[in-house]
């Protein structure tokens, strides 16, 4: 049976019941959550989901289904159609976990991500946080996928050059999956 896929994002001031209100709409429409992540950023709760349906809903029709949740919980909801192939994650080849941190300044995410982009290093996950300490510290934790032919030393050199430019510390750990 053919399935139809949509990308859905939700964001709004945090309160109890946001997930339930969104999940209720999906459930009532017979829509499955294929992949998702939801988290609290500051005091904004955000949900990013890939959902699928056996029924081919129009985007507007589906958006309308969220009207009540949007109004009651003051949420921004956006929705678009995606292709079936976009719903599946490609198998990563060469996974590393990267921590970048230092005194807060403008451009930490930019310089690091630019160096990665220029070297075909793909960011699969990225979390950042600014601490509230006297000297605010910026912390950036990433999961990246290196091109298959890139060695760990080459990768470290790229990161080292970028981090020296902006005077931040970094560390790198290979992510190994134990198949047990």
């Amino acid at each position, binding site marked *: 049976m053919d399935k139809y896929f949509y990308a859905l994002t939700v964001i709004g001031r945090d309160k109890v019941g946001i997930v339930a209100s969104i999940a209720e709409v999906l459930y009532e429409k017979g829509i499955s959550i294929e992949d998702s992540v939801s*988290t*609290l950023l500051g005091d904004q709760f955000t949900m990013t989901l890939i959902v699928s349906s056996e029924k081919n809903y129009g985007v507007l029709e589906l958006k309308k289904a969220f009207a009540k949740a949007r109004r009651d919980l003051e949420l921004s909801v956006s929705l678009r159609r995606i292709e079936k192939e976009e719903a599946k994650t490609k198998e990563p080849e060469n996974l590393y976990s990267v921590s970048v941190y230092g005194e807060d300044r403008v451009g930490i995410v930019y310089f690091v991500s630019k160096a990665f982009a220029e070297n075909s290093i793909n960011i699969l996950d990225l*979390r950042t*946080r600014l*601490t*509230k300490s006297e000297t605010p510290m910026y*912390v950036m*934790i990433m999961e990246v996928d290196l091109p298959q032919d890139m060695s760990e030393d080459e990768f470290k050199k790229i990161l080292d050059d970028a981090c020296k430019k902006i005077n931040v510390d970094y560390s790198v750990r290979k*992510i*190994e*999956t*134990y*198949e*047990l």
Partner: protein
Amino acid sequence: MAVRDIVIYPDRRLKEICAEIKGIDDYTLSVARDLLDTLHNYSHTVGIAAPQIGELVRIIVIDASKNKKGQKINHGELVMINPEILEWSSIIKTREGCLSVPDYTGNVNRARKVTVKYYDLDGNEHRFDTEGFEAVVLQHEIDHLDGILFIDRIISRRTDLFRRKNY
């Protein structure tokens, strides 16, 4: 003597607490034999617990030497009856997958060092210390005997970066 099918979640047998082996009888020997045959059948698998072949008894087989991460510290191929972790220390984060939970991996905290006790197929008691990969394999397989999957040990990722509580 047979390679057995791996029990796949949501089969409830993976959530049962397995029975202690009271004596080494023909049944115990045949489960051990099948576990080894099944272990040998998968080139990348370093451990199988009895419930993973549908036998709800406390037997595991491991062979950390099959993986390059286990090359430095390992005790080779072992059949372990009533295995038990006596002591542990220090924590490492691992990313684990499992034959019984296809297509899913997750970050799990494990003890880096463990002391384990078990009985062999002649009923002799053994104990040894190990660390790193082999220690993780042992914890993963012994968890199976208590109906615990690695998914039960995953900690929400957000806690990694959570704000420290104000004192």
